[in-house]
């Protein structure tokens, strides 16, 4: 067990416990031991001066592709969790579209074991909905849950069969597993490469209508209302989808949603010049969609900011746009991109932190996400005014596929603590 830590004089932002003020924080035995408005005695602890810093619960990312097992050239659980803690994330949910797919307890256990060996961020495996992501046969959801999966998804692919989707909601509901969905009607998106609009027409990229996402959101909300369960909608990207989720929540349906930083900071303009580092699925949208996502983040329609961190190598990206792999990395840029919304007046600091902490924790029912005494000692220290320039080459991730290369950003993670142990900066660099 590591030495106790006192984090002194920082601005503690703990949305779940309605704290936003200068506090001392004591971490001991892997838990938050005390939060105090008055200075805490050092009492043998390591002292961390946090004046001028934000002290927040460790960030939680519900949507990360760690690529292990199977595509270790792009990312491993070690490199991916290094990227996580560099970005202030103390926990990540690992998507199942690995090779082999995480559709069995065996793969789930492997992911957990590798994460334990890496010993950086907590890794919560997410199991597959269907065997091999084939969209046909239900995976062993009970076994996946028992092995430690916190949700199920076929992410990267939609569940095209409405019948399977309905049965999964019915079956996963009593297991307490959120069903996380990638909403895309493949018959509408087929052959397309960019959101339908003047830019897609000009660049000669076949259009993906926004209805490809929206009709599936509508379908799944209808199914949810009929059979219950727990629906979580991944990477919401269209204005009309936000409106549907808002209305469903108003009616009390058990739905949650996440949005990715690229969908609230970029439009399809970033694709100009066939920039494959701006290619992801769902694709970048139009300014009115970005505005709607921002509104959804502010008003509670969207519960969590999730990066959809999707590492790819040069071979997948240095090709013509239509042939390039979907996905961008996001763990190491999520904080400053979220803070752009604070500076723009879209989110207050407390709401911004909530979207990175207690929002995602509640969505998947995870421990952490807050700093009350007894909570896991997962803490992120942020210098909210630090200016830096995004340089993929300096990332901890093995991959460099960021659409933000060269962007000047503000806000930097200066320390990440998991279970009371400082994991960022990395031990070997300290």
């Amino acid at each position, binding site marked *: 067990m590591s030495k106790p830590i006192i984090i002194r004089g920082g601005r503690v932002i703990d949305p779940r416990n309605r704290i936003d003020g200068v506090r001392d924080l004591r971490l001991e035995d892997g838990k938050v031991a005390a939060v105090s408005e008055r200075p805490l005695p050092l009492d043998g602890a390591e002292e961390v001066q946090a004046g001028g810093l934000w002290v927040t619960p460790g960030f939680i990312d519900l949507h990360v592709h760690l690529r292990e097992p199977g595509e270790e050239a792009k990312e491993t659980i070690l490199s991916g969790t290094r990227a996580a803690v560099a970005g202030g994330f103390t926990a990540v949910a690992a998507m199942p579209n690995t090779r082999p797919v995480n559709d069995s307890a065996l793969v789930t256990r492997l992911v957990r074991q590798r994460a334990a060996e890496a010993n950086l961020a907590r890794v919560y495996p997410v199991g597959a909905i269907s065997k091999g992501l084939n969209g046909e046969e239900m995976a062993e959801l009970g076994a996946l849950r028992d092995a430690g999966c916190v949700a199920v998804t076929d992410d990267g692919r939609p569940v095209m069969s409405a019948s399977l989707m309905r049965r999964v909601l019915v079956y996963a509901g009593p297991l307490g597993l959120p069903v996380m969905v990638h909403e895309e009607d493949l018959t509408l998106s087929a052959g397309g490469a960019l959101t339908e609009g003047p830019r897609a027409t000009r660049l000669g990229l076949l259009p993906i209508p926004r209805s490809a996402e929206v009709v599936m959101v509508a379908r799944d909300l209808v199914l949810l209302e009929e059979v219950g369960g727990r629906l979580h909608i991944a990477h919401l990207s269209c204005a009309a989808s936000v409106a549907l989720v808002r209305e469903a929540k108003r009616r009390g349906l058990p739905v949650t949603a996440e949005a990715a930083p690229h969908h609230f900071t970029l439009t399809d303009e970033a694709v100009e010049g066939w920039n494959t580092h701006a290619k992801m699925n769902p694709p970048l949208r139009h300014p009115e969609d970005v505005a709607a996502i921002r509104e959804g983040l502010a008003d509670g329609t969207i519960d969590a900011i999730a990066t959809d961190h999707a590492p790819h190598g040069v071979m997948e990206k240095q090709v*013509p746009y239509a042939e390039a792999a979907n996905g961008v990395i996001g763990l190491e840029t999520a904080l400053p991109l979220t803070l752009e919304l604070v500076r723009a007046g879209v989110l207050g600091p407390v709401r911004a932190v909530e979207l990175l902490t207690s929002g995602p924790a509640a969505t998947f029912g995870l421990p952490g996400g807050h700093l009350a005494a007894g909570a896991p000692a997962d803490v992120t220290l942020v210098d909210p005014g630090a200016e830096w320039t995004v340089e993929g080459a300096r990332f901890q991730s093995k991959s460099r596929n960021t659409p933000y290369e060269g962007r000047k950003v503000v806000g930097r993670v200066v320390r990440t603590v998991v279970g009371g142990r400082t994991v960022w900066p990395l031990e070997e660099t300290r």
Partner: protein
Amino acid sequence: MNAFSRRSLLTTEGMSRHDVEVLFGRARLHARGLRAGTPLRSLAGRVVANLFFENSTRTRLSFERAAKALGADVLNFNAATSSVSKGESLVDTVRNVEALGANIIVLRHPAAGAAHLVAGKVRCSVVNAGDGTHAHPSQALLDAYTLHERWGTLDGKTVAIVGDVLHSRVARSNLYCLTTLGARVVVAGPPTLVPVGLEALGAKVLPSIDAALEEADAVMMLRVQLERQKESMFPSSAEYARAFGLTPGRARALKPDAVVMHPGPVNRGVELAPEVADGPANVILEQVANGVAVRMAILESCG
């Protein structure tokens, strides 16, 4: 984006009227040289590589003829028999071709933006001979040249582009080129094949082919890709011909001096009735002949 960056021709978007007119001037010289059997051999000793990752007969032959007429050595590359089928990437392939001594790479590729990607990875010049549904600048320039030689100017003229605009790089490149030269462009086609946002690119979308033909000084019939029928983009070739084809009846309704163009190859009886394809209004073979002179001017400007 520059139309000519490092003396490459990637698109007609953003090309200045002056650049186009200078090019036409050179094309006129080359046309004269070709007719007289004394072409200007201004690329003697240079190497032009035709890299075609997509089937094409006329464009490849036209570029080959143009390069040889200029005295260049020509390398022809056939994607089907190359190391591409062994998994070599496009970027590796073009770097190898450059290392062989190519001064100009003429690239045809099924993906939009391919020529742009290649131009960023090699030092030699790149001529886009068609990239997916994005651009086909040499076709647009030869189309505009054909009209320019007939009319003396495109100012105040109306050109109708009819058919599958969604999948047409020819339509996009023509739209920029024609409007730059002062023409007005109207578009008509099956509503499933008219993409969103054409107005923002400078075209006027009309509700029917008849509305478009009524105003046209020239009509460009786009080739129908018959496989689109399988995607239910339109119900059948017969219905396409009736609703969007240039039938003899529609040809009679054209302005008396209007010309009929087609980038080829023609689906006779679908977008063009056979009588029209062979009729006096069409300039299709003139387009082909002009293509050589215009491509000579393009290669020369890149060489």
